[in-house]
């Protein structure tokens, strides 16, 4: 499963949970549900509320082919949406709403990430968690 692509994916906040569950359904993430594929909070000006969530991954051509097929509702028969609380319509809306940018794996990931955010008019949101110091 050698990776050949740098991939940035962004999903609207209202579709984040479905998109994350979809990643679990296709075996790219796992419990605790809904997984944590889309972990970078984004918004137009970097302030809350978060309007989108994003991620960067290194991937195969087969993964990208699968993403493209999913936009048409075409999934391998082995994918069991119900196990993850998804309907086919849920999966379709999540797949169709996904922004996917693909570059050669040689690109510096942060450059790719920054490029896609700029093109999408999005900025990372700083959500500082409380100081735990357990």
């Amino acid at each position, binding site marked *: *499963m*050698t*990776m*050949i692509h740098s991939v*940035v*994916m962004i999903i609207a906040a209202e579709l984040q949970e479905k998109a994350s569950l979809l*990643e679990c359904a296709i075996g*790219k*993430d*796992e419990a605790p549900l809904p*997984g*944590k*594929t889309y*972990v*970078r*909070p984004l918004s137009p000006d970097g302030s809350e509320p978060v309007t989108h969530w994003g*991620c*960067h*991954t*290194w991937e195969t051509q087969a993964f990208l082919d699968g993403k493209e097929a999913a936009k048409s509702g075409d999934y391998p028969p082995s994918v069991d949406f119900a196990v993850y609380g998804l309907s086919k319509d849920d999966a379709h809306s999540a797949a169709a709403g996904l922004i996917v940018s693909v570059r050669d*794996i040689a690109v*510096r*990931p*942060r450059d790719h*990430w920054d490029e896609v955010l700029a093109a999408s008019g999005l900025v*990372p*949101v*700083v*959500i*500082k*968690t409380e*100081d*735990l*110091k*357990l």
Partner: protein
Amino acid sequence: MLGLGISLWGQRRAAAAVLDPATLSPHLWLDPSDLTTLFQNSNGTGAVAADNDPVGYIGDKSGNGNHFIEATAAARPIYKTSAGLSWLAFDGVDDSIGGPLVNGFITEAVYDIFCAGIVNTIATDDPSDQPTFNDALFSDGGGLIGLHFRQSAPRMCAFNYDGSPDTANDDYTAGEAFVAHIRHSGGNLSLTQNARATVTVASGDTGSVINPASIGRNRTDTSHAWTDCKFYGMIARKTIFSAGEVAALKTYMGAKVGLVL
């Protein structure tokens, strides 16, 4: 003179060649150059075999079971190999690998850690020099220990929290290979980078050692938690290494990252 020269050369070669870190009884030993310890999936399946394979599991070679894992495919680093070196590449966007509690390889009062890496770019500049808000090669989930980096007067910072933050800082330029030796013992925290002078600050017992360790990110902040870096290995023990062991480990870890130390 000739005889002496040959003798010293022979000793150095022998020391570098024969060190087996297992003989030092470390509590953690991660070695990305050993493909038998790397797997693509977090459950330890799918051997890593080639450049650009994802890594979801790094086995702990110390025998103490402190394996590092990542269940989310998008968050896994990839294995890279070139010119005889091997490393894990973290994307600086959302990659990390972790899991074991730090008490598997440190105690509140004592730890001795060697790690080898390259931070490609430093994207953070928190002036408090705390790992919570700065890029980190490794850290724990409570923000109590780690090795982190900041932009201004660019530096690497060994961190220990004993009720207040303590950092041992040294200059660092992004893109440079390093071996960092972090020692916490006798109420002090020290950082030695490569062959540079050791920096030592006072630091008492670590406030907690029950948080999970991570490589490739700091602990919790969701905006700049992830580090654009290469990871070449890590060895840690709950007791300090002897001077001879330190010298041998510097040489050993230096070779992992392409340095002669």
